[in-house]
């Protein structure tokens, strides 16, 4: 019995010892994890921001640093920090040469020949060649990789054989991209794609060095050691799903002279109040603020609102809910919404009330004008007009033979969507007598599945543009498109969409542009969706920082030309 007691005492002592070690803390724990990080001591040391590092707040951790696997804006931004594609974005979002010095287009618009610059190097010293692009693109359609953004090559980019390669029907070597020599890349397309050069800054099209990839195998792009840089910065401290990581300036970058920052210090902060306090105490140079905090900072010169590109809209399930198949009911619902109330009083982050199916400020036409600059062009079917809404509503009710209607709207169980949903609920119930709206918050994955399966009545959803062309939106409402949640179908519309993507109009930019207006008009006249607002982000940007480039498409923030004044 004595023996048992002694053992017990030992166990207790051990538990206590672990406890004390635990108290002492964090110290020992962190040193082990820092050692396990590939960067080792240098990585740990790098966390301490040097004076010229830019301290950036992000809301979510990076999901993937593999350019062909990444799908979210944060990952794209970080990948682009240390990787250059053929083209890059200038301040206004136009494509300008990066690794490609120049390119030529064949007369029929289907063959692009990129000339690569010869002074671009990977961070292990090997030059960046056309083969790296071929390998990267082949990965993008490789069924084994199962890239979620392969459609950038297939439907959007129309690269020859991309679809067949992705389905395994053709060898990857048959993909329409070819390294003519080390510094010449030839791309063959199925049909002319007017915005093709603008796709080249999208990370799915970034190069991957095959030799390096094979040497690291499955661990590619999961740590600084398994990542190669050819861009302005080098990743030097990173762990998968890290809440803080660091990039340092790439001295061997071909354009290194222009890069002013010593490095980038990323910090994931999910709580907006902590983020603002960190900014105010000087730990961050750029941070997001939420609507509640705007009152506190709106007079501050550091406060900015920046368009984020997302269109938020309500999708009515036109095919499955008989009442919503009635056009007047739908028109009444879209006209009963006071979009200004949503943006001005609830969101307050500079989001723009939107009355068009294609949101403003991302697609610029051949004449240089914004596709959706005129928000009143559909004012006969989409504006705030409660009287007309009520009238249409009564008419619609009569047509469906009912005097009341109860609908459920599914929304993401996140803060902003739920706020918006509550305002919509209140406005609809007040302005359309007899309408009852139930809000059903669901986790995003479930909400998306329900909408994809057609298992919903009304759904609050959003869409971010993949490329700077109205088709990124208009393509959604084609019959059979996966994102046509309401399964609305219109033969005229489908014909127009085919015409501007693969038909004759595809090669005539001006005509294409006006034809797309016709398509948008059908969507709005039929109230296929109820557009609400174009999302903006309210941000605080330290006055000492200038030259951060913001884009609604592809790469949200670019730091190549950013300058941080010494304090």
């Amino acid at each position: 019995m004595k023996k048992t007691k002694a053992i017990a005492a030992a166990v207790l002592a051990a538990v206590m010892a672990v406890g004390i070690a635990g108290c002492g803390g964090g110290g020992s724990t962190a040193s082990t994890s820092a050692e396990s990080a590939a960067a080792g001591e240098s990585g740990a040391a790098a966390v301490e921001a040097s004076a010229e590092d830019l301290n950036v707040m992000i809301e979510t951790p990076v999901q993937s640093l593999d350019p062909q696997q990444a799908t979210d804006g944060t990952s794209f931004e970080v990948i682009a920090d240390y990787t250059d594609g053929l083209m890059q974005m200038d301040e206004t979002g136009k494509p300008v040469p990066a690794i490609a010095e120049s390119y030529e287009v064949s007369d029929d618009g289907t063959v692009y020949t990129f000339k690569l610059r010869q002074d671009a190097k990977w961070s292990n010293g090997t030059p960046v060649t056309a083969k790296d692009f071929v390998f990267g693109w082949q990965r993008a359609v490789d069924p084994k990789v199962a890239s979620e953004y392969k459609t950038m090559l297939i439907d959007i980019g129309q690269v020859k054989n991309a679809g067949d390669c992705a389905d395994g029907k053709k060898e990857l070597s048959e993909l329409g991209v070819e390294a003519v020599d080390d510094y010449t890349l030839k791309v063959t397309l199925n049909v002319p794609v007017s915005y093709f050069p603008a796709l080249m800054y999208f990370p799915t099209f970034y190069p991957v060095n095959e030799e390096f990839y094979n040497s690291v195998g499955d661990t590619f792009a999961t740590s600084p050691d398994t990542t190669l840089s050819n861009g302005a910065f080098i990743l030097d401290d990173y762990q998968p799903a890290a809440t803080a990581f660091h990039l340092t300036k790439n001295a061997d970058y071909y354009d290194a002279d222009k890069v002013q920052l010593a490095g980038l210090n990323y910090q994931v902060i999910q709580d907006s109040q902590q983020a603002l306090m960190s900014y105010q105490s000087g730990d961050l140079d750029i941070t997001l603020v939420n609507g509640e905090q705007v009152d506190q900072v709106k007079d501050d010169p550091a406060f900015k609102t920046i368009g984020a590109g997302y269109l938020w809209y309500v999708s009515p399930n036109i095919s499955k809910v008989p009442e919503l198949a009635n056009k007047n009911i739908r028109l009444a619902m879209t006209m009963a919404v006071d979009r200004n109330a949503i943006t001005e009083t609830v969101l307050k982050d500079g989001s723009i009330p939107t009355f068009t199916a294609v949101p403003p400020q991302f697609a610029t036409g051949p004449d240089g004008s914004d596709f959706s600059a005129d928000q009143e062009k559909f004012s006969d079917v989409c504006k705030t007009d409660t009287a007309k809404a009520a009238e249409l509503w009564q008419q619609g009710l009569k047509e469906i033979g009912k005097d009341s209607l109860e609908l459920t709207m599914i929304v993401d169980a996140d803060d902003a969507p739920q706020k918006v949903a509550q305002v919509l609920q209140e406005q609809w119930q007040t302005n359309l007598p007899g309408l009852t709206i139930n809000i059903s918050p669901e986790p995003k994955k479930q909400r998306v599945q329900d909408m994809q399966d057609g298992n919903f009545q009304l759904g609050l959803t959003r869409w971010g543009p993949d490329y700077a062309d109205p088709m990124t939106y208009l393509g959604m409402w084609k019959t059979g498109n996966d994102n046509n949640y309401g399964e609305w179908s219109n033969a005229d519309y489908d014909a127009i969409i085919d015409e501007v993507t693969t038909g004759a109009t595809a090669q005539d930019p001006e005509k294409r542009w006006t034809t797309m207006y016709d398509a948008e008009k059908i969507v709005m006249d039929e109230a296929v969706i109820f557009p609400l607002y174009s999302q903006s982000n309210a941000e605080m940007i330290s006055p000492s920082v200038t030259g951060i480039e913001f884009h609604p498409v592809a790469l949200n923030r670019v730091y190549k030309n950013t300058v941080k004044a010494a304090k």
Partner: protein
Amino acid sequence: MKKYTIKRIVTAIFTLLVIVLILFILMKLMPGSPFNDEKLSADQRVQLYAKYGLDQPVVVQFFHYVINLLHGDMGVSYNISKNTPISALVATRLPVSIGIGFAAVMIGAIIGLILGLLAALKHDTIVDTICTIISVIGVSVPSYVFALLLSYSFGFRLGMFPMLYSQAKAFQSSVLPSISLSMFTMASIARFTRSEMLEVMGSEYMLLAESKGLSGRALIFRHALRNALIPIITVLAPLIVDLMTGSLVVEKIFAIPGVGSLLVNAIQSNDYNVVIALSFIYSAMYIIIMLIVDILYGIIDPRIRLAKKGD
């Protein structure tokens, strides 16, 4: 005792297997899949399912998983950190959560015990009332409110501690999270210690010990506290597991790279492997701690030990 311990370990392993199976079934019931995203088409979803073997029957998936698990392979993440082995993901995060959690348990348990003892010894006095109020505040204010208030006052206004967790300053930046996490433990332990001590002190054997002339410290520590500890340990054990496996809200507020926030993100994005792996780790820790508690019982309370011998 030895035989009993071995038997417990064998059943513990069996229990873990049952838990993995149940988790598998639960994951299948979960609406949505890891690949429900606006940008993914139906074909792509099928392809991704095939890539990760999710198109196979649950039973096949289960056996694959168990076999891999025996090799120490917990699979890869589907979307939180794409294709990253979960062992790598957990290896860097679990130590952080355990460190902060254990510090919180220690702070909470020690202060809780002291408060509870004080309240019991000074029963029905102002000391008792104050201890009650402190512990009630501890249970009625959510830890995230504490976290933000601490961060605001000690981090932002006074600048004494960092507002966000950083690995370079792991000790200083763990102070505020540990304190905010310890409040609930402290309150629970204080309440329970008080109630158990009162009960024990009212019992006949205490009266006997008292009348035998034992007094003061010996009476309280050797007799009263020892008996009061049994139920306290029962309350403490699950709290330890809860805290060491990370707290969602506190990790979120202090930007701590722990496993608590990972689990919530994984559930919300249907990252099956991460949910199963983290739940498995949680279960394993829970079962181990309960095993230790059970063995400790026998040592603290001879009656249970004797009863077990009889089995």
